[in-house]
């Protein structure tokens, strides 16, 4: 099987917040990590490769530093990596990102399956995967929790729905986005880590991808950010004291006043 896994470098979300006093974004000590869902995507891809053979290529669009997430993916066992980096790619929205990734996947043809994480934790959009599938004109299934098998050119999966799950068969080539249930990522081997250090990671830009400048980056984006601001501080932070009986009674009283519980 020829597999392509999309990984994104993201800032570690737990360290980002807006300083409520100065109203500025605090970035101190914010590290870059592999988007956690993309490690699940990689694990799903590695399992398929280990079962069916073939090649797994990881791709990432981002600044030159994003090479480190590709090296990390190589250490887990990916066969090859390509970094999509070009000044022209900066500021891309999900539409422009999907078009850029699509140009790369096409260049890696023939492929059987593209795997993305459910969402990237910086933007939480969950849009790039399905948009990429559409740009490639291949079918996609989002929020896949289980892969049941491959037979007669079809991949059978379970996708998580809000009220349960669906079993879906999709003809290859296809794209899936995966959730955590797909299985915990393995631990990179020592050999993998050594290989990942040495392996060349080619960088492709506009030229290599044969894309027009107005298709990518900020110019190719349909949406743009108008404003960024701190969310309203939430939580009234009222601590209810007393013995458990009083605490429970006071809580119920307030919840009734707030009209969030209805009791006769």
């Amino acid at each position, binding site marked *: 099987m020829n597999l392509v896994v999309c990984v994104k470098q993201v*800032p570690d*979300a737990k360290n*980002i*917040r807006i300083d409520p006093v100065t*109203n500025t*974004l605090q970035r101190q000590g914010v590290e870059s990590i592999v988007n956690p869902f993309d490690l699940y995507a990689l694990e799903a891809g590695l399992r398929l490769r280990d079962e069916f053979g073939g090649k797994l290529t990881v791709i990432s669009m981002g600044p030159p530093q994003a090479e480190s997430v590709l090296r990390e993916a190589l250490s887990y066992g990916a066969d090859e990596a390509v970094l999509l980096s070009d000044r022209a790619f*900066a*500021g891309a*929205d*999900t539409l422009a990102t999907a078009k850029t990734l699509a140009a790369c996947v096409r260049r890696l043809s023939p492929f059987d399956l593209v795997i993305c994480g459910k969402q990237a*934790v*910086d933007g*939480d*959009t*969950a*849009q*790039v*995967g*399905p*948009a990429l599938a*559409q*740009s490639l004109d291949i*079918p996609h299934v*989002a929020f896949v929790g289980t892969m049941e098998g491959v037979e007669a050119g079809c991949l*059978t999966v379970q*996708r*998580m*729905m*809000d*009220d*349960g799950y669906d*079993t879906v*068969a*999709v*003809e290859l080539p296809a794209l899936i986005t995966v959730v955590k249930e797909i299985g915990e990522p393995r631990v990179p081997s020592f050999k993998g880590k050594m290989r990942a250090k040495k392996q060349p990671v080619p960088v492709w830009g506009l030229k290599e991808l044969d894309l027009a400048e107005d298709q990518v980056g*900020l110019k190719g984006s*349909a*949406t*743009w*950010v*108008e*404003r*960024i*601001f*701190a*969310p309203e501080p*939430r*939580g009234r*932070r*009222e*601590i209810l004291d007393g013995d*458990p009986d009083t*605490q*429970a*009674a006071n*809580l*119920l009283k307030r*919840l009734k006043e*707030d009209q*969030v519980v209805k009791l006769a």
Partner: protein
Amino acid sequence: MSIGIDRDKCTACGACVDACPFGVMEIVGETAVVGDGCTLCGACEEACAFEAITIVRKTGSSEAAAAYQGVWVFAEYRGGNIAGVAFELLGEGRKLAEKLGQELSAVILGGCLDGAAEELVAHGADRVFVFDHPDLLHFQEATYSRTIAGLVRERKPAVLLLGATAIGRSLAPGIAALLDTGLTADCTELDIRPEDQALLQTRPAFGGNIMATIVCADRRPQMATVRPKVMKRASRIEGHRGEIISMDLPSEAVDRRIRVLGTVAQQGDLVNLAEADVIVAGGRGIQEEKNFALLKELADLLNGCVAATRGAVDAGWIDYAHQVGQTGRTVSPKLYIACGVSGAVQHLVGMQSSDVIVAINKDPEAPIFSVADYGIVGDLFEIVPKLIQQIKNSLGQ
């Protein structure tokens, strides 16, 4: 669009460097410099106390605004029911339509849509496009997105809203890509900018730590998915009239590359967390699988659902489908009661848009208290039974 820095006004104080979410601002010598990767988001402009930074923004083209008219909502239909979020979209869609002075329409797809279109009209739709066909019985990305994109091309709405549900979030990006237009995910606030009729789409980013307002001012339609339970539901309007248009499913829209072999709706303890008004969540403080029965009892009394942290899920006490947070679901019920939950950021991002949050935790320092409206420092095994007992008393049980 462009960003400019006035060297005379810039004091090289570095406020913009700290403010930049993308880390592309630098101080070089006496002045701030914008590096590669700037998205013109405006965080630096806002942070600059000296008005040294100016971002020149685009406004939308008036042709785009004139050629596309009307607010559309996608009415998700599954298992014989219109999804709750569809009524919320009608409620919000009505407000937007009024601001634009345009009509509100709904689009519904399914395999046996008895009476659904009438329901949508009764909740304020001026027009409903109905695709009722056996090939649409199960949600299937490719056929659904082509069908909707085809109709949009023909009728040209200004705005198209979908619920940020599993179905909506899987479907919307394909429609947007087919139409080569913008899409904003999981919005919690929508408005119309009067100057150019652009849809202002506000959503949490970076795990809810910042809010961003996004526009798609020079392409149409302007598409957004909207977080369930945030917008106010449309109420039933007696005697409201609307046109119901029965559409043929175009054969070229049918894509057989995806086949739904079966659907399992989990019932009873599972859970449409995204739609629940009340959620009682348990963390590792629950200590044992069987203790979730206590939370279930409380949830049942409040007509709610049970959710969990990753800690509790990883311990094997409850199914992953109940997990709320970064690697689980995002919920925003009216009431979220967190019991024995520490409040790790990865959990908070999934629940902090709830209306009212209650925290019950032994540890007064637990971060969950910082987002809670009401906190009880104490043993959940003492507090929860008291709550149950008092609720039963007031229900006369």
